[in-house]
Protein backbone atom coordinates (compact mmCIF):
# COMPACT_ATOMS: atom_id res chain seq x y z
CA UNK A 1 0.00 0.00 0.00
CA UNK A 2 1.31 3.39 -0.88
CA UNK A 3 2.14 5.74 1.92
CA UNK A 4 0.17 8.43 0.21
CA UNK A 5 -3.07 6.57 -0.24
CA UNK A 6 -5.16 5.51 2.67
CA UNK A 7 -8.57 4.02 2.90
CA UNK A 8 -10.86 6.63 4.51
CA UNK A 9 -12.83 3.84 6.18
CA UNK A 10 -9.64 2.55 7.84
CA UNK A 11 -8.98 6.02 9.10
CA UNK A 12 -12.54 6.32 10.34
CA UNK A 13 -12.22 3.02 12.14
CA UNK A 14 -9.07 4.18 13.89
CA UNK A 15 -10.85 7.31 15.00
CA UNK A 16 -14.00 5.54 16.13
CA UNK A 17 -13.17 4.88 19.79
CA UNK A 18 -11.45 8.24 20.37
CA UNK A 19 -14.42 9.87 18.62
CA UNK A 20 -16.84 8.14 20.98
CA UNK A 21 -14.59 9.00 23.92
CA UNK A 22 -14.71 12.65 22.84
CA UNK A 23 -10.97 13.06 22.84
CA UNK A 24 -10.48 14.11 19.23
CA UNK A 25 -9.55 17.64 18.25
CA UNK A 26 -12.18 19.80 16.59
CA UNK A 27 -10.51 19.28 13.22
CA UNK A 28 -10.53 15.50 13.67
CA UNK A 29 -14.16 15.54 14.81
CA UNK A 30 -15.18 17.40 11.66
CA UNK A 31 -13.15 15.00 9.56
CA UNK A 32 -14.83 12.00 11.18
CA UNK A 33 -18.28 13.53 10.84
CA UNK A 34 -17.81 14.35 7.19
CA UNK A 35 -16.76 10.79 6.51
CA UNK A 36 -19.63 9.33 8.51
CA UNK A 37 -22.14 11.52 6.72
CA UNK A 38 -21.04 10.15 3.39
CA UNK A 39 -20.33 6.52 4.25
CA UNK A 40 -23.11 4.09 5.04
CA UNK A 41 -20.64 1.30 5.90
CA UNK A 42 -18.98 3.30 8.68
CA UNK A 43 -22.23 4.88 9.80
CA UNK A 44 -23.71 1.45 10.51
CA UNK A 45 -20.66 0.54 12.52
CA UNK A 46 -20.72 3.82 14.33
CA UNK A 47 -24.36 3.28 15.35
CA UNK A 48 -23.48 -0.20 16.47
CA UNK A 49 -20.63 1.05 18.64
CA UNK A 50 -22.96 3.56 20.29
CA UNK A 51 -25.52 0.82 20.92
CA UNK A 52 -22.84 -1.57 22.09
CA UNK A 53 -21.59 0.85 24.73
CA UNK A 54 -25.13 1.39 25.94
CA UNK A 55 -25.70 -2.36 26.01
CA UNK A 56 -22.59 -3.09 28.10
CA UNK A 57 -23.37 -0.31 30.54
CA UNK A 58 -26.90 -1.57 31.09
CA UNK A 59 -25.93 -5.22 31.10
CA UNK A 60 -23.39 -4.88 33.89
CA UNK A 61 -25.32 -2.36 35.98
CA UNK A 62 -26.52 -3.55 39.34
CA UNK A 63 -28.34 -1.23 41.73
CA UNK A 64 -26.93 -0.75 45.19
CA UNK A 65 -28.78 -2.72 47.86
CA UNK A 66 -30.79 -0.22 49.94
CA UNK A 67 -29.48 -1.68 53.21
CA UNK A 68 -25.97 -0.82 52.13
CA UNK A 69 -26.91 2.82 51.82
CA UNK A 70 -28.07 2.74 55.43
CA UNK A 71 -24.86 1.06 56.52
CA UNK A 72 -22.84 3.75 54.81
CA UNK A 73 -24.83 6.49 56.50
CA UNK A 74 -24.09 4.84 59.81
CA UNK A 75 -20.36 5.15 59.12
CA UNK A 76 -20.56 8.95 59.28
CA UNK A 77 -18.88 10.63 62.21
CA UNK A 78 -21.52 11.19 64.89
CA UNK A 79 -22.24 14.85 65.52
Amino acid sequence: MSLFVFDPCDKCEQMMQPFLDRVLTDVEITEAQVHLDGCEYCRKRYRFEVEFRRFVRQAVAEPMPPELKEKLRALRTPL
Partner: protein
Amino acid sequence: MNTAATVEPVSDTSESPARQVAEEARDRVRFEEEALALSDQVYGVARRLVGSREEAEDLVQETYARAFRSWRSFQPGTNLRAWLFRILTNLNIDRGRKVQRTPDMQPLEESDYFLYNKLEESTTDGTPDERRVVDRLSQNDAVTALADLPHDFRDVVLLVDLADFTYSDAAQILDIPIGTVMSRLHRGRRMLKRTLADSAVEER
Protein backbone atom coordinates in the same frame (compact mmCIF):
# COMPACT_ATOMS: atom_id res chain seq x y z
CA MET B 1 -11.96 49.43 76.19
CA ASN B 2 -12.85 46.28 77.95
CA THR B 3 -15.14 44.20 75.79
CA ALA B 4 -15.09 41.14 77.92
CA ALA B 5 -18.33 41.96 79.62
CA THR B 6 -20.36 42.76 76.50
CA VAL B 7 -22.86 40.27 75.20
CA GLU B 8 -22.48 41.59 71.64
CA PRO B 9 -21.06 39.01 69.30
CA VAL B 10 -17.44 40.01 69.04
CA SER B 11 -15.55 40.26 65.80
CA ASP B 12 -12.78 37.83 66.65
CA THR B 13 -15.00 34.76 66.97
CA SER B 14 -13.21 33.15 64.03
CA GLU B 15 -10.38 32.64 66.48
CA SER B 16 -12.55 30.86 68.97
CA PRO B 17 -12.02 27.15 69.24
CA ALA B 18 -15.75 26.60 69.53
CA ARG B 19 -16.37 28.31 66.24
CA GLN B 20 -13.59 26.37 64.57
CA VAL B 21 -15.05 23.13 65.82
CA ALA B 22 -18.47 24.14 64.52
CA GLU B 23 -17.06 25.08 61.13
CA GLU B 24 -15.14 21.89 60.86
CA ALA B 25 -18.21 19.88 61.77
CA ARG B 26 -20.17 21.67 59.10
CA ASP B 27 -17.48 21.03 56.47
CA ARG B 28 -17.30 17.42 57.50
CA VAL B 29 -21.06 16.91 57.26
CA ARG B 30 -21.05 18.48 53.82
CA PHE B 31 -18.17 16.29 52.76
CA GLU B 32 -19.94 13.17 54.02
CA GLU B 33 -23.18 14.07 52.27
CA GLU B 34 -21.40 14.71 48.97
CA ALA B 35 -19.52 11.45 49.28
CA LEU B 36 -22.70 9.52 50.09
CA ALA B 37 -24.43 11.00 47.06
CA LEU B 38 -21.84 9.17 44.92
CA SER B 39 -22.34 5.80 46.58
CA ASP B 40 -24.48 4.32 43.78
CA GLN B 41 -21.67 4.91 41.32
CA VAL B 42 -19.07 3.59 43.73
CA TYR B 43 -21.12 0.45 44.29
CA GLY B 44 -21.69 -0.01 40.56
CA VAL B 45 -17.97 -0.17 39.89
CA ALA B 46 -17.16 -2.10 43.08
CA ARG B 47 -19.68 -4.77 42.09
CA ARG B 48 -17.74 -5.40 38.86
CA LEU B 49 -14.34 -5.27 40.52
CA VAL B 50 -15.12 -8.26 42.73
CA GLY B 51 -16.84 -11.58 42.26
CA SER B 52 -19.84 -11.32 44.55
CA ARG B 53 -22.36 -8.89 45.93
CA GLU B 54 -21.15 -9.55 49.48
CA GLU B 55 -17.58 -8.69 48.59
CA ALA B 56 -18.75 -5.56 46.79
CA GLU B 57 -20.69 -4.45 49.87
CA ASP B 58 -17.64 -5.01 52.08
CA LEU B 59 -15.43 -3.13 49.67
CA VAL B 60 -17.80 -0.16 49.50
CA GLN B 61 -18.10 -0.05 53.29
CA GLU B 62 -14.32 -0.12 53.65
CA THR B 63 -14.07 2.63 51.08
CA TYR B 64 -16.48 4.90 52.92
CA ALA B 65 -15.00 4.09 56.32
CA ARG B 66 -11.60 5.16 55.04
CA ALA B 67 -12.97 8.19 53.21
CA PHE B 68 -14.78 9.45 56.31
CA ARG B 69 -11.71 8.82 58.46
CA SER B 70 -9.34 10.65 56.16
CA TRP B 71 -11.67 13.39 54.95
CA ARG B 72 -9.17 16.07 55.96
CA SER B 73 -6.79 14.89 53.28
CA PHE B 74 -9.35 15.74 50.62
CA GLN B 75 -8.64 19.14 49.06
CA PRO B 76 -11.94 21.00 48.75
CA GLY B 77 -12.59 22.08 45.20
CA THR B 78 -10.83 19.07 43.71
CA ASN B 79 -12.55 16.04 42.25
CA LEU B 80 -14.26 14.17 45.09
CA ARG B 81 -15.49 11.44 42.79
CA ALA B 82 -11.95 10.69 41.59
CA TRP B 83 -10.69 10.83 45.19
CA LEU B 84 -13.28 8.24 46.29
CA PHE B 85 -12.59 5.94 43.37
CA ARG B 86 -8.90 6.12 44.14
CA ILE B 87 -9.62 4.80 47.62
CA LEU B 88 -11.85 2.12 46.12
CA THR B 89 -9.32 0.86 43.60
CA ASN B 90 -6.44 1.00 46.09
CA LEU B 91 -8.41 -0.97 48.65
CA ASN B 92 -9.34 -3.49 46.02
CA ILE B 93 -5.68 -3.99 45.15
CA ASP B 94 -4.74 -4.16 48.86
CA ARG B 95 -7.31 -6.88 49.45
CA GLY B 96 -4.96 -9.08 47.53
CA ARG B 97 -6.50 -9.91 44.26
CA LYS B 98 -6.26 -13.46 43.17
CA VAL B 99 -3.10 -14.32 41.33
CA GLN B 100 -3.62 -13.46 37.73
CA ARG B 101 -3.56 -16.05 35.03
CA THR B 102 -1.02 -15.43 32.35
CA PRO B 103 -1.97 -12.07 30.94
CA ASP B 104 -3.87 -12.14 27.70
CA MET B 105 -1.23 -12.02 25.02
CA GLN B 106 -3.35 -13.11 22.16
CA PRO B 107 -3.05 -10.74 19.28
CA LEU B 108 -5.79 -8.16 19.07
CA GLU B 109 -8.39 -8.42 16.40
CA GLU B 110 -7.27 -6.49 13.40
CA SER B 111 -10.50 -4.55 13.18
CA ASP B 112 -12.42 -2.55 15.72
CA TYR B 113 -15.53 -3.50 13.79
CA PHE B 114 -15.10 -7.23 14.08
CA LEU B 115 -17.85 -7.74 16.64
CA TYR B 116 -20.37 -5.99 14.43
CA ASN B 117 -19.06 -7.77 11.34
CA LYS B 118 -19.27 -11.11 13.05
CA LEU B 119 -22.81 -10.55 14.30
CA GLU B 120 -23.83 -9.22 10.94
CA GLU B 121 -22.40 -12.08 8.95
CA SER B 122 -24.07 -14.65 11.21
CA THR B 123 -27.54 -13.22 10.73
CA THR B 124 -29.77 -15.15 8.45
CA ASP B 125 -32.48 -12.61 7.82
CA GLY B 126 -30.75 -10.25 5.46
CA THR B 127 -29.11 -6.99 6.45
CA PRO B 128 -29.76 -6.44 10.14
CA ASP B 129 -30.61 -3.18 11.77
CA GLU B 130 -27.41 -2.28 13.59
CA ARG B 131 -29.45 -1.11 16.54
CA ARG B 132 -30.99 -4.56 16.87
CA VAL B 133 -27.73 -6.41 16.42
CA VAL B 134 -26.82 -5.78 20.05
CA ASP B 135 -30.01 -7.55 21.10
CA ARG B 136 -28.30 -10.76 20.10
CA LEU B 137 -25.81 -10.30 22.91
CA SER B 138 -26.78 -11.62 26.31
CA GLN B 139 -26.56 -9.70 29.54
CA ASN B 140 -24.94 -12.60 31.37
CA ASP B 141 -22.29 -12.91 28.70
CA ALA B 142 -21.42 -9.25 29.16
CA VAL B 143 -21.05 -9.69 32.92
CA THR B 144 -18.90 -12.78 32.46
CA ALA B 145 -16.80 -11.24 29.72
CA LEU B 146 -16.06 -8.23 31.91
CA ALA B 147 -15.24 -10.45 34.88
CA ASP B 148 -12.83 -12.45 32.73
CA LEU B 149 -10.77 -9.43 31.76
CA PRO B 150 -7.37 -9.28 33.46
CA HIS B 151 -7.59 -6.91 36.46
CA ASP B 152 -5.41 -4.17 35.04
CA PHE B 153 -7.52 -3.95 31.91
CA ARG B 154 -10.80 -4.23 33.74
CA ASP B 155 -9.93 -1.41 36.15
CA VAL B 156 -9.46 0.97 33.24
CA VAL B 157 -12.52 -0.19 31.31
CA LEU B 158 -14.69 0.20 34.42
CA LEU B 159 -13.43 3.67 35.23
CA VAL B 160 -13.81 4.99 31.70
CA ASP B 161 -16.75 3.06 30.27
CA LEU B 162 -18.84 2.58 33.38
CA ALA B 163 -17.92 5.50 35.63
CA ASP B 164 -17.27 7.97 32.78
CA PHE B 165 -13.90 9.16 33.98
CA THR B 166 -11.62 10.88 31.51
CA TYR B 167 -8.36 9.18 30.54
CA SER B 168 -6.53 11.65 32.72
CA ASP B 169 -8.72 11.05 35.78
CA ALA B 170 -8.36 7.30 35.31
CA ALA B 171 -4.58 7.75 35.11
CA GLN B 172 -4.56 9.64 38.40
CA ILE B 173 -6.90 7.23 40.13
CA LEU B 174 -4.81 4.21 39.17
CA ASP B 175 -1.50 6.05 39.38
CA ILE B 176 -0.41 4.99 35.91
CA PRO B 177 0.60 7.04 32.87
CA ILE B 178 -2.15 8.22 30.55
CA GLY B 179 -0.62 6.25 27.68
CA THR B 180 -1.05 3.09 29.75
CA VAL B 181 -4.70 4.01 30.35
CA MET B 182 -5.22 4.34 26.62
CA SER B 183 -3.51 1.09 25.69
CA ARG B 184 -5.26 -0.90 28.43
CA LEU B 185 -8.59 0.60 27.50
CA HIS B 186 -8.05 -0.23 23.86
CA ARG B 187 -6.97 -3.76 24.61
CA GLY B 188 -9.60 -4.31 27.31
CA ARG B 189 -12.44 -3.26 25.01
CA ARG B 190 -11.16 -5.50 22.25
CA MET B 191 -10.93 -8.46 24.60
CA LEU B 192 -14.46 -7.82 25.78
CA LYS B 193 -15.70 -7.76 22.21
CA ARG B 194 -13.85 -10.90 21.30
CA THR B 195 -15.33 -12.83 24.23
CA LEU B 196 -18.80 -11.58 23.38
CA ALA B 197 -18.37 -12.40 19.72
CA ASP B 198 -17.33 -15.95 20.62
CA SER B 199 -20.21 -16.50 23.02
CA ALA B 200 -22.75 -14.95 20.66
CA VAL B 201 -21.74 -17.33 17.92
CA GLU B 202 -21.65 -20.35 20.24
CA GLU B 203 -25.17 -19.68 21.42
CA ARG B 204 -26.63 -19.76 17.99
